[in-house]
């Protein structure tokens, strides 16, 4: 058994990459992940990746913000220290709307982005787990787990026929620890 861990197919063009993914899937090669310098639309369907649920997360955080704002204002202005302002009602709802809105947006944005960072393991100082340094620049890289997929020559051929400009056999998973 060779000690190759990952096979990387480099494409120069997103359309070639999509073509390559099709070919690999036809050849029953499982794809570990794809690294690209920009978002590729439609690739999730191809790889069978589920729709992100971050929208629901954002909604929940937003509602939390709304509820926080209205309860805070109610507690401070209506319950804890009601002030007589010209005999007007203490619970002056229309006046509370702006801050309810602002806190909804604030909680929604921070909650959603925080969740995004958390689920994708993005944090300041985290070692970048990059398989190829050009994947953030101009190469569209398909990574194939070499242990799970035997017949490496066959995979190389599929990639080259699909238009890969370079095929790499990496013995280490990530290059960025060097």
């Amino acid at each position, binding site marked *: 058994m060779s000690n190759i861990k990952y096979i990387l197919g480099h494409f120069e063009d997103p359309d070639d990459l999509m073509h390559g993914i099709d070919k690999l899937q036809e050849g029953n090669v499982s794809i570990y992940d794809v690294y690209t310098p*920009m978002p590729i639309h439609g690739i999730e369907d191809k790889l069978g990746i589920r729709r992100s649920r971050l929208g629901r997360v954002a909604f929940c955080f937003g509602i939390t913000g709304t509820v926080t704002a209205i309860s805070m204002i109610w507690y401070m202005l209506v319950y804890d220290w009601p002030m007589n302002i010209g005999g007007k009602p203490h619970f002056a709802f229309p006046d509370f709307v702006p801050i309810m809105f*602002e806190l909804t*947006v604030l909680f929604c944005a921070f909650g959603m982005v925080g969740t995004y960072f958390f689920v994708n393991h993005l*944090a300041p100082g985290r070692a*970048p787990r990059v398989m190829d340094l050009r994947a*953030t*620049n101009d190469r569209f890289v398909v990574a194939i787990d070499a242990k799970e997929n035997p017949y490496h020559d066959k995979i190389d051929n599929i990639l080259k026929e699909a238009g890969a400009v370079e095929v790499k056999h990496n013995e280490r998973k990530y290059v960025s620890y060097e």
Partner: protein
Amino acid sequence: MSSHHESILREPLVTGENITYSKVTEDILVPVENKPNKAWWIGFIVSAIGAGLWVFAVSWTFWFGVGEWGLNKTVGWAWDITGFVWWVGIGHAGTLISAVLLLFRQNWRNSINRSAEAMTIFAVICAATYIISHMGRPWMFYWALPLPNQFGSLWVNFNSPLVWDVFAISTYFSVSLVFWYTGLLPDIATIRDRATGLRRRIYSILSFGWNGSVKTWQRFELVSLILAGVSTPLVLSVHTIVSMDFATSLVPGWHTTIFPPYFVAGAIFSGFAMVQTLLLVTRKVMNFENYITMFHIESMNKIIILTGSIVGVAYLTELFIAWYSGAEYEQYAFLNRVSGPYWWAYWTMMTCNVFTPQIFWIKKIRTSVAWSWILSIVVNIGMWFERFVIIVTSLHRDYLPSSWVMFYPSWVDVCVFIGSIGLFFTLFLLFLRVLPAIAMAEVKLLLKSSSDQAKRKLIREGSVDKGEADYYLGSLEKYDSISPRKVEYEKV
């Protein structure tokens, strides 16, 4: 597929020949990966002197108090709040470009959103410093937050627009910062993977470990879309609330329901003018002509005519309603604006905001870099005067004629204002130096569909209608980044 073909009739968003993905990276990272040029240093030194002046003038204000400003008993708000509203307004264009244009799928935003958002953040910093300094005892600024009674007062009054403003501005600033930084992550990762040594370590920390995998991008796009969705009403709410600081008072000239839409239009107007001021210079100095094209400049000028005209209609409506209301104080306030001792400020505002931007109806002028730049400065001046007119002319002659006075700024007022411009440019120039001024990943998205190169290829392949191809080549005339001789050749 990743690249759908766009109609040939649409003008290109990226020009230049032999543009590849790596060339986009190379071009945009020139200022980040190399030593800055002379133009940058000159700009930076001048701005840094301005920022130094700001530090001095603000420290002076903190030490001796707001009595050092030209304020008096009658005019309690003047250059401070003028400066605050001016800066907040300027910030609005950044969010408009990054959020509203994203929701409308305006792809031309892709190459200007990064620097416009940076501008928003720096403008809001300038605005916030005015708010802190005008408090008189700035170390007590946290009293504006809802803190318990033990701090010596009641809870803050949530019925007051000034409290709404605290929430609005701080939410606006922090959400804009998050939006901007999340968008920066993939580009910081690009710099990281090209750098070596210490630079790589620094950008590695800043990149949060971005790797560009499928799932990261998928979620990234959703996060951007939702952030755009919540930022759009946010940006409208911010200037609405700023306008309510005035509109909910009983001062003639302030107490009007037209203020929220009028302020928001004015904010977008001044913000786009500032984007023009900055980007026209940036594209020249940093050689970004292929990415920030004449189409971008013209589109922004069109928004300037639109919002400038809305502001013009608002000015006229205010005059009409003052007359039509029959309220004598309201009528006097506007008569005093137009023909009182501050008539020159009013007419400067009218000229700069309403009359001069109208010459953008002429195509030659709105596609000229020099004219666009000059008019953007004119608009900025006009919008400063708008806020000055609203604030000072309404206050200086109130209900009690025995208290009528004029406002004269002190040297501290002037230094804080000039200094805040210095601070703004210092921050912007530093940004250009350390972070990519154009969102590389987003520009790469346009390469296969909206670039001049891709469209010419279609024409050469003969896959488009001859008439449409000629129309397209004709629309390239205005581009200063495409040589006309090449276009002629293609036509034949």
